[in-house]
Every structure is written in structure tokens, then in C-alpha cells.
């Protein structure tokens, strides 16, 4: 039975949750979802670790969200469609072709920039507005470069596939254009999409022995959502080129 299959890396049976989220999935899709969840989990972990050199705070990640969707449902996934957010984009080519987007809430941009500037810029008040904006763009590009490369490097090593990252692009725009951009970048016909979303979270006032704290105390910790990492894939292409080749190897 597919539902009894556990991931050999973390021994997690993700299928139980999947039954709640998307009840119409076939047993094959449930297995594929487990596989993808593990891959995205490893990639996001690698991306989160790459950020630790920038921030003194603890960086954590959530459990990735994987959904098989029709294109018409894509807008239901991304929240307030007209909310303006910072969107950082990194294309990859190689054995798979895709785009990773990192979405940063506009309220959090200043916190992130301040944190980095306080570590690396001696006197940020000496910068002109223009210089500050230029540095902001540069810093955000660099963050995406580091996060994206760590993300795909982990996938590349985990699956033994070749991936080549392109240069980082950015846009400050409505959330709805995220869907637009990711789907257009696929540049191909598709039936079903795989939506992969994970989040990187900064705990602003981390206590050293956080593992020993009760869950209620943990909730009170001042957390900030650093960014959402979102990828869309053509399910058929992913299934044919990647998942089927690896599922026997990675599952009991």
C-alpha cells in the first residue's frame, strides 16, 4: 500500500496529511507527492542554512506544501492577488527547466535590509537615497543568488542531476503576476501542474534552547516570514524525467 510507504530519509509518512488536503489523488500521485515533498524539504533546508551567515537569528523552515493543480486553480493558492510584494526570480536549465521565485512581503523588506546593512555597512546614514536603493537591489539579488543556488545545488546533489542557475531577476508587483510569470516560463503545453511552496522563517528573538520550550512559548517568539519559495512544474514532464527514475531508489 502506498500509504504505508515512508521516506527513508526522515521516516515521515506524509501521505496521511495528503489525504486531508487533496482527497482525489491517486495512489501514484500520493507517492509522487511524498517524493517531491522530501526533495523540496531538503532544498529549502539548504537554502535556509545558506542564510545563516547573514543573520544572527535562528532560521527555520516549514513543511513544504505540494499540490497537483489545474491551471484555473492556481490563483487560489497565492493569497491576496493584488497585494504588492517583492518577487525575486531565478531560472534554471539542465535536466529540468524551471523558475524559482522567492516572495518577500513588503513589510519585511526593511527588516531584512536593516539586518544586513547593520552587519555589513558601517554607516548606512551616509548613503544617499539613490545609493541606498541601489544597494537594496544588490543585496536582494545577492540573497536570491545564494538562496537559489543552495536550493538547486541540494536538489542536484540529492538526485544526481545537472542544473544550471541563470542570473537573478526581480520585480515589485502584484501577487497575481507570480502565477503569470511561472506559467509563462514553462513555455509549453501542460495538463496538470505541480505547485511546490516552502517558507523560510527568521526567529527574531531566539532562545538558545528553543527545543525545550513549550509550544505555547514557541508561538510567542517573534517570528518573521523571510520569504516564500515557489516553483511550478509541468507534472507530466517531472514525472517522466525525474520522479519515475528515482522513486524505487528512494522509497522502501
Amino acid at each position, binding site marked *: 500500500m502506498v500509504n504505508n510507504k515512508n521516506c527513508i530519509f526522515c521516516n515521515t509518512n506524509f501521505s496521511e496529511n495528503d489525504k486531508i488536503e487533496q482527497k482525489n489523488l491517486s495512489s501514484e500521485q500520493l507517492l509522487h507527492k511524498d517524493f517531491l515533498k522530501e526533495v523540496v524539504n531538503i532544498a529549502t533546508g539548504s537554502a535556509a542554512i545558506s542564510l545563516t551567515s547573514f543573520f544572527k537569528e535562528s532560521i527555520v523552515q516549514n513543511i513544504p506544501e505540494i499540490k497537483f493543480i489545474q491551471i484555473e486553480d492556481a490563483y487560489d493558492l497565492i493569497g491576496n492577488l493584488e497585494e504588492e510584494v517583492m518577487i525575486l526570480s531565478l531560472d534554471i536549465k539542465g535536466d529540468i527547466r524551471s523558475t524559482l521565485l522567492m516572495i518577500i512581503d513588503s513589510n519585511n523588506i526593511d527588516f531584512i535590509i536593516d539586518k544586513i546593512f547593520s552587519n555589513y555597512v558601517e554607516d548606512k546614514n551616509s548613503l544617499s537615497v539613490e545609493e541606498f536603493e541601489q544597494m537594496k537591489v544588490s543585496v536582494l539579488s545577492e540573497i536570491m543568488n545564494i538562496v537559489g543556488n543552495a536550493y538547486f545545488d541540494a536538489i542536484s546533489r540529492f538526485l544526481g542531476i545537472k542544473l544550471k542557475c541563470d542570473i537573478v531577476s526581480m520585480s515589485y508587483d502584484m501577487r497575481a503576476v507570480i502565477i503569470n*510569470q511561472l506559467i509563462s516560463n514553462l513555455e509549453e503545453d501542460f495538463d496538470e501542474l505541480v505547485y511546490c511552496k516552502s517558507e523560510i522563517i527568521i526567529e527574531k528573538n531566539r532562545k538558545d534552547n528553543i527545543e525545550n520550550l513549550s509550544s505555547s512559548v514557541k508561538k510567542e517568539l517573534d517570528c518573521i516570514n523571510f520569504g516564500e519559495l515557489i516553483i511550478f512544474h509541468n507534472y507530466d514532464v517531472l514525472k517522466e524525467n525525474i520522479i519515475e527514475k528515482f522513486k524505487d531508489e528512494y522509497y522502501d
Partner: protein
Amino acid sequence: MTKKIVAIGKIETGKSGDELMCVGVGSCVAVAIYDSNAKIAGVIHVFLPTSKKEIKDTSKATRFADIGINCLIEKLQDLGAKKIFLKAKLAGGASLFSNENKVSTNQIGHRNIEMCLKVLKENKIPIVSKDVGGEKGRSVVFEVGSMDMKVKKNSKLKII
């Protein structure tokens, strides 16, 4: 009056008083085609210029500018519009992402616009107005009846 959301890669049609909305038109193009006499209009939200292979599933044809616009024209004719009276307005086709070298990484917006203009020209449908290109996404509302296209970009509203 009915408000209809035109999902990405889909067509919606309406009669006088209806509003046809496309939210988050980035590199996609929202093409409105209307017959002012019959008070009928339709909007297509295309996201790719051409289909690379033959599309057997007609519900997918509306994703592509090259075949999707023809589907919209046929649909309007089925509803009673006369092709000779059809006119068009369009918005979208932005190049959303740029890098530090100011080079657009994706020309899909531009290619979408070009294909929409080409298909409309082939069908001899005059383009009354358009708001295309640029680097920002848009939200588009087409009011059937007045045949106004409201385009929201950078939090500013423009009627074309």
C-alpha cells in the same frame, strides 16, 4: 449585471452591463473583442503566443494567442455578433522581471503582444485602444455596454 473573472488561459463573454475581469495580467494579454451594435463582448486571457503542438483539447486552445483569439471570435459570432462590427481593445504583455543589467530575462510578454496584434489584423478587427508592454502587471476590467476597458497599473486607474 454579472461580474465574471476571466481565469488565466480562459474566455468569458457577457452582455450589456456585465463586467469581465482579469486580475494580475503580467506577461499575459487580456484581449477584449466586442460588437457595440449587438452589445456583446468577450475577453480572452492568453498566456502564451503559440502552441508548439496541435491542440486536440479545445479547452486548452484558449491559452494561446494564435488559436485562442479565433475561438473568441467564433464564440461571439455564435452569440449573435457580426464579424464586420467587431472591434478590439487589449492590455498586458509586460516584461515583469529585469536584472541589474536591466536586461529582460523573458521576452514572452512582447511575443504575446505581437501575436495578438497579428491575429487581430488577420481577422481585420480594428484595435480601438491598447495599453501594452512596460514592466508592471495590470488588473483589467472590461465593461460590456460602455465597452470601456479599465486598466489598473501601479495603483493608478486608466480607461482605454
